[in-house]
């Protein structure tokens, strides 16, 4: 029942004949393996929901092709595509109870009532809905409606499962529990699923690979770890990760093998000879300016007395329960550091900040990634 999915140069163009056609999705290509869970991640309006709806058949594909299990489906009606979908707005049938709503999705499979009931109960158990099954959508909470909507999608046997913000309305504790259960359920049954979300945690937790979208364009399609460690461009670098990556436009200077990354004449980061790989050094030699990105977790902070690193002045120091967020004035901007323990520093205090050479992300001025730590970014070595 599980299938691969291919989207090849898929475009969604509104007002195609107008002077300025609007590209909701532009040349979107991803190939999804059978049994893989993929998240489409991006801020609102990035084209992720349009993409999902094109796969489901509720939006026409303006250009390009979509196939499921090797079968081209983008011209078929939704009923013939073999997809199940959970909608962001739940879209339960108001006059039916949650049980009837979930069972209703099985109607076209023509199962016996015993089998229907068994499947509904199984899904309801998975989603913690058993107690609410005989209530009507208007009498249960948004979270319960959302779970019923998710249940209505999962209960069906389909080639792929499309989940549009499947957990947006759930309270945080339940969300964490259900994420785990949903992932286990999809895995156990080997189901292919595409999920749309703007929540990085959800994407990271559920997906094997994440497609980051912005402005209708696929920015990067990679595993959660690769997105974090090897962002393909500055957008992905700053979009993925919380708090976001610190970004500085710098001019590299190399003097006697020592590398200095400077902004407005002031050194932000300095590296002794041998600490940066030769390939990266030769890349720096060829550039007058570039953008350096530093994850807050990679920033080393220490008291000023004699420690290596540039000086930064603390702006705010927050303990958020399991981490310290330390924001300091740095160069002509700020640097944010996250630390795993409490850190005694008052606003106004001067500190030494340093970033190990293998934690630097280097981007060209147009945003293309050049190098991540010790390795050159693929395609960034030009």
């Amino acid at each position: 029942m599980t299938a691969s999915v291919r989207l090849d140069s898929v475009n969604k163009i509104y007002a195609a004949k107008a002077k300025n056609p609007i590209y909701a999705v532009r040349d979107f290509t991803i190939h999804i393996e059978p049994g893989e869970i993929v998240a489409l991640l991006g801020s609102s309006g990035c084209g992720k929901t349009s993409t999902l709806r094109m796969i489901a058949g509720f939006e026409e594909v303006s250009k390009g092709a979509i196939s499921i299990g090797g079968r081209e489906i983008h011209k078929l009606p939704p009923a013939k595509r073999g997809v199940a979908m959970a909608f962001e707005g739940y879209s339960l049938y108001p006059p039916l109870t949650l049980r009837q709503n979930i069972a209703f999705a099985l109607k076209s499979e023509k199962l016996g009532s015993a089998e229907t009931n068994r499947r509904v109960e199984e899904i309801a158990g998975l989603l913690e809905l058993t107690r609410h099954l005989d209530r009507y959508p208007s009498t249960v909470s948004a979270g319960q409606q959302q779970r019923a909507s998710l249940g209505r999608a999962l209960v069906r046997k389909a080639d792929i499962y499309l989940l549009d913000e499947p957990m947006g309305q759930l309270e945080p504790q339940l969300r964490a529990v259900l994420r785990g259960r949903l992932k286990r359920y999809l895995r156990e049954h080997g189901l292919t699923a595409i999920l749309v979300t703007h929540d990085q945690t959800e994407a990271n937790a559920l997906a094997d690979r994440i497609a980051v979208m912005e402005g209708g364009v696929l920015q990067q399609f990679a595993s959660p770890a690769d997105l974090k460690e090897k962002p393909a461009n500055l957008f992905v670098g700053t979009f993925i990760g919380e708090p976001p990556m610190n970004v500085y436009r710098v001019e590299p200077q190399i003097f006697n093998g020592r590398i200095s990354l400077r902004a407005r004449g002031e050194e932000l980061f300095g590296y002794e000879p041998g600490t940066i790989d030769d390939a990266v050094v030769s890349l720096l030699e060829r550039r007058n300016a570039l953008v350096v990105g530093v994850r807050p977790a990679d920033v080393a902070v220490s008291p000023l007395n004699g420690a290596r690193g540039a000086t930064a002045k603390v702006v705010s120091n927050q303990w958020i329960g399991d981490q310290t967020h330390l924001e300091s004035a740095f160069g002509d901007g700020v640097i944010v550091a996250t630390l795993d323990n409490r850190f005694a520093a008052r606003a106004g205090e001067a500190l030494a900040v340093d970033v190990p050479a293998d934690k630097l992300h280097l981007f060209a001025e147009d945003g293309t990634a050049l190098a991540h730590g010790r390795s050159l970014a693929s395609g960034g070595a030009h």
Partner: protein
Amino acid sequence: MQHMSTGERVLRGILIALALIFFLFPIFWIVLMSFQTNAQILRIPPSLFFSPTLENYTSLITGQLKTASGVLTLNFMQNLFNSFILSTASVALSLVLAVPAAYAFARYKFRFSEDIAFTLLSFKFAPPLLVLLPLTIYFQKIGLANTYFGLIWVYQLITLPLILWIVRGYFEDISPDIEHAYRIAGHSWAKTFFKISIPLARPGIAAAALLSFIFAWNNFVFALVLASADKQPVTVGALAFVTASGIQYGQIAAAAVISITPTLALALFAQRYLVEGLSLGAVKG
């Protein structure tokens, strides 16, 4: 409910009673009149006390109207039947045409969709008499004058825009994703329309059908011009009570009572139905 003092409660009761008397008294008076002879109705001062007679009703039902100047034949039962045929058929035809159209206007943005919808609505703005003169000439030329078919066609001017606009609003209130959820579960567009969209819009369709039935039933001017005696509805037929020997108030009252009964019954029935509201009986598994 917020707390009310005794004074407020009494005042409220009085105001409601006054409103009820104001609105219901004419109907009450007509019902009384329908059981009186012309002489009893016209006496001065009027009185609530009289010996009731069924004469008005019998003359309506038998079609024999006794006046001072002799017996006149009446078409009242035929008129009632005509009203029933014209209103029912007009509403039925409008439902068949307007419900799918309303769905299309609600769901799809196509070229000129707003203009077409507005044009249909604008039929309701035009003064009927403006339309009637040319229409009469055309209908006489093509043989549609004084036919049920022709009248039902003209009645579409009353019923179709009303149903279209009310039902369109109901369709717009239904999330398209509810339909999508059904379609993606393996059902065709048409099946979704009949099994999901129409049942969910049913309260709206019922309200629109009821309203347009009442409007069609009460129509006077189209039928007055386009229909002769054997196709006239009650509204036009009532003119027959204005006779050479005076106005037959008793029969008019009886005719009014009989002719409001169907719409009243329909309204009461539909009210219950509308309150029941969202029952998606047709799709229960």
